[in-house]
């Protein structure tokens, strides 16, 4: 296991459902410690990409490997933060229990009280600054508070690769920043590779190593400076798109209506 070996390798990967193609010709090697933002319109196949890596969806063609082995279900080397929120009511879970499920929720039987699990959960909670939610019912936590627990839960199995599916969705700016900082901190501390699906690159721009942009069934990957340019996006969208850099933020204008994702930063011309 050389340290140069990429954590995740996708080769000529293509995914589709029935006659519909989502994306093809995806080639990417994700290295350890690298944070890649995954951008694209609603329905472009970002969540589906993560499901491929989780072994839940089969590629149409090409290959997907984690540290050299083909992707499979239940790979403990992968941590996952889903797009969906938890149910609002009737959950017999407090903050610590959600995290504990990440530690040993897949095991059979009834969980017996264990000091080791307790300590591990406390340590995970404090690593994301969520000690205060330890005994709070998760159903009563706000989206941002739940997201902190999600990060701790995903880190519980000591993953090498972290998949985050729109963790910033419906968070206000301070919470967006906080979640980005927590993910970034975990990546540095644990040398994690991170795929970070997001509608808006700006909250995480200063932490992103590379961008994977999916549009029109095609993908582009590169540093933000390489991908987030008028030329590249115009080519990708097959339409004149303007990328404007303003005070360290990236504004994208002119994305065709049918490809537009819901974000104020995107202004149709």
């Amino acid at each position, binding site marked *: 296991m050389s340290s140069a070996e990429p954590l995740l390798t996708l080769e000529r990967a293509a995914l589709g459902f029935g006659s519909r193609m989502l994306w093809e010709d995806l080639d990417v090697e994700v290295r350890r410690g690298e944070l890649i933002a995954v951008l694209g319109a609603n329905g472009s196949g970002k969540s589906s990409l993560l499901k491929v890596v989780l072994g839940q969806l089969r590629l149409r063609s090409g290959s997907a490997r984690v540290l050299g082995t083909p992707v499979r279900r239940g790979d403990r080397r992968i941590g996952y933060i889903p797009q969906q929120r938890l*149910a609002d009511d009737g959950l*017999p879970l407090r903050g610590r229990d959600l995290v504990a*499920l990440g530690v040993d*929720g897949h095991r059979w*039987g009834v969980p017996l009280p264990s000091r080791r699990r307790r300590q591990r959960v406390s340590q995970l909670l404090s690593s994301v600054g969520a000690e205060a939610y330890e005994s*709070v019912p998760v*159903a*009563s936590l706000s989206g941002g508070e739940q997201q902190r627990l999600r990060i701790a839960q995903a880190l519980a199995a000591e993953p090498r690769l972290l998949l985050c599916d729109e963790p910033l969705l419906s968070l206000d700016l301070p919470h967006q920043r906080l979640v980005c900082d927590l993910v970034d901190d975990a990546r540095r501390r644990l040398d994690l590779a991170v795929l970070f699906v997001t509608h808006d690159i700006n909250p995480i721009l200063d932490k992103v190593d590379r961008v994977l942009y999916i549009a029109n069934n095609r993908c582009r990957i590169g540093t933000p400076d390489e991908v987030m340019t008028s030329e590249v996006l115009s080519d990708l969208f097959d339409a004149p798109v303007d990328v404007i850099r303003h005070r360290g933020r990236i504004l994208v204008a002119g994305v065709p209506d049918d490809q537009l994702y819901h974000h104020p930063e995107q202004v149709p011309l």
Partner: protein
Amino acid sequence: MTGLDTLWSEIFNFSDYAQLLPLLKNSVIACVVLGVMGGLIGVFVMTRDMAFAVHGVSELSFAGAAAGLLFGVSVVAGALVGSLAAALLIGVLGSRARDRNSVTAVLMPFGLGLGILCLGLYHGRAANKFGLLTGQIVAIDDPQIKSLISIAAVVIVGLLVVWRPLLFASTDADVAAARGVPVGVMSLVFMTLLGLAVAVSVQIVGALLVLSLLVTPAAAALRISASPFRVPLLSTLFALVAAVGGVLLAAGSSLPISPYITTISFIIYVTCRAVGPSRGRARAQSST
């Protein structure tokens, strides 16, 4: 005045109670097992949002039991066939909540009608007839109780074996799937256990009142706790109190057990709602 008095003594009659108690042994045992089973499975019925589905399964279970009665095969076997078929059908066709509700709503009147048809055609002992819908009179006969207890035991043991992955899959399906929990298999396992649990409950509280044992205790427990340890314990305790309390109160009367069980169950729920923290307060209290 005397009218009320007679009514009261029909509902509660504790004369000769001491002689009565030994005869209640079977019923009490049955209700203890039923209580533990109902309290435990109810937690998952709640977290999986399946209360309505339980009602649907119990009507099909009633149809099966009535058919068993009509054709002279075992009532328990009929109830099992009906509820397992319904549970698996709902499990397979209704993986999403909306589908599940419509599948249940379609199955429920069908099952109820089928059961009423079978009962209408049945010309045997009449006293027992509507027991399948509204519950039994106290004494539960011996051969029946053995099969009920063994089925309930299967449910309890099954639940304990799959407890943790089932809780994971029921509360947080996406992450559970990512962690390798076979979410689809868990769902089928759960529906099978639920089918068994309903078939047992129908025999005692009746198809119309199954919810009082498989849902109300867990719903009550969830009002006052969000701990995955305390909720099943409280839920079991509540179901036990309702079931066993129901038998003991019903003993002297000639009424079915079910109204006693449902009433106790309901009172527990209302009490839990009243004393339980509202969601906002829950946070303030537990974070101090």
